[in-house]
């Protein structure tokens, strides 16, 4: 056990020295891996942020009904009763036109414009919260409501969110394809790096075999190298993502302020970060492993 840990420590040292020995080549490799990984990860982050946004909308679908201007209070009351009787509806909220105007004044920073109005242009509205979540059923409900008296306009808030989700599904597939292709690239990069290393260390491998080195002993530094290079590529990708998000959020902050809202892109979670590092390290290890099993047997002492 002790022997093994000494060996591993020794191997780590050897590997690190190999990385540092060719600083430019190692740096470029790490950079290439980092950039390649940051593309799908960046796509994933954008998707996740948008997803989060659309989930909120889809999670609580609303149907807003704008009533005709001449609707009386009694008519509103009876409509509310009828709506509440429907099984597909959870509850209904009545928003009188005066309240709507006040809300508009408060929420969007249009106080000056609203204040200058002499007449309230807004209609009374009903906000319907359905008890069903399926997009088709909610759309069917909306279609039914169209024929009700005094209903001027019906708006399904989540309709566009469903469309957005469909687009997101498409984006997700694109990210998966991109990630798969670039993973292959990462494995290929490591494969080639290790192949070159094996060639330059031919003498050492041959001598080591002659003085009793096991296969594992010879393989290990190359596997560590692939692992380390992959992980450093992962760290680079992580840094690229964090820096990009920081810059984007900075600009997004200004943009969101203009619209009176606070929207920022969330950073990579700890779990996502660890997955990224683990995955890149694994791919590096895999590339090295493939390369070693392909090339090492060719070197036999003569």
């Amino acid at each position, binding site marked *: 056990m002790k*022997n*093994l840990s000494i060996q591993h420590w020794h191997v780590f040292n050897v590997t690190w020295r190999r990385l540092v020995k060719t600083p430019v080549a190692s740096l470029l490799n790490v950079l290439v891996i980092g950039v390649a990984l940051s593309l799908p990860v960046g796509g994933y982050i954008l998707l996740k942020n948008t997803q989060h946004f659309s989930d909120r909308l889809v999670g609580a679908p609303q149907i807003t009904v704008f009533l005709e201007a001449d609707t009386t209070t009694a008519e509103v009351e009876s409509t509310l009763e009828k709506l509440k009787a429907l099984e597909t509806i959870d509850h209904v909220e009545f928003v009188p036109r005066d309240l709507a105007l006040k809300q508009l004044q408060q929420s969007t920073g249009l106080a000056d414009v609203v204040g200058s109005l002499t007449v309230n242009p807004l209609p009374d509205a009903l906000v319907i919260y359905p008890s069903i979540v399926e997009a088709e059923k909610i759309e069917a409900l909306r279609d039914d409501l169209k024929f009700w008296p005094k209903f001027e306009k019906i708006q399904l808030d989540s309709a566009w969110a469903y469309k957005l989700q469909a687009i997101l599904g498409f984006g997700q597939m694109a990210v998966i394809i991109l990630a798969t292709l670039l993973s292959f690239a990462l494995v290929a990069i490591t494969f080639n790096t290790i192949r070159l290393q094996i060639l330059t260390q031919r003498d*050492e491998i041959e*001598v080591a075999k*002659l003085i009793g080195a096991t296969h594992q002993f010879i393989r290990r530094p190359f596997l560590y190298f692939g692992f380390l290079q992959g992980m450093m590529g992962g760290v680079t990708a992580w840094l690229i993502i964090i820096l990009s998000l920081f810059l984007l959020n900075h600009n997004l902050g200004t943009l969101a302020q203009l619209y009176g809202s606070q929207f920022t892109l969330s950073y990579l979670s700890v779990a996502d970060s660890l997955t990224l590092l683990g995955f890149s390290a694994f791919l590096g290890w895999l590339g090295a492993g493939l390369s070693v099993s392909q090339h090492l047997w060719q070197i036999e002492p003569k």
Partner: protein
Amino acid sequence: MIKFNQVYKRYAGGYEALKNVTFEIAEGEMVFLTGHSGAGKSTLLKLIAAIERPNSGSVLVRGQNIKALKSGALPYLRRHLGLIFQDHKLLFDRSVFNNVLLPLQIVGFDHRESVKRVRAALDKVGLLQREKANPIALSGGEQQRLCIARAIVNRPSILLADEPTGNLDTEYSSEIMNIFQSFHQVGVTLLISTHDEMVINRFPARALTLKNGELQP
């Protein structure tokens, strides 16, 4: 310790390097392997180190049949052998010290103990003062001695030396032979291939003579 029984070795292309070779070397024995160049001396040593495998016949080393040896078991056999190569096979990307350290790293030896052993081995061959040098800066005789230090640092029970005095002048040769003699005295089994008459005449030991791949009586 080493036992050949009717060994034939044919290389690709039909060249017969060894023909019907049978002999035995007891534990602790020192034996010379002589013969003209191309007689099969190197091939014979390679069979013992399992670098080559016989076409027919059996080669037993420490009771293990080389021919039947699984590739996974090979490293563990080689750890009992000290190999001294004609071309030294030193690594020029590291110091003298680290060249000798390599066999101990391979077996995962404790570092502090390793340092002691490396120094002892270098001291034995008279290279202690050069431990930080790169082997490329050493003379031919020093490189040969470094190769010996690397072969003995693991305290092998068998030492195989292929033309250890090959390109050296008489003074260096006897120096190296004296080192071998001292291993012989502590019970190491030695097989030294040489065509150096001076060596054979000055050091009393049994000699196996090869001629065109056959052992001479």
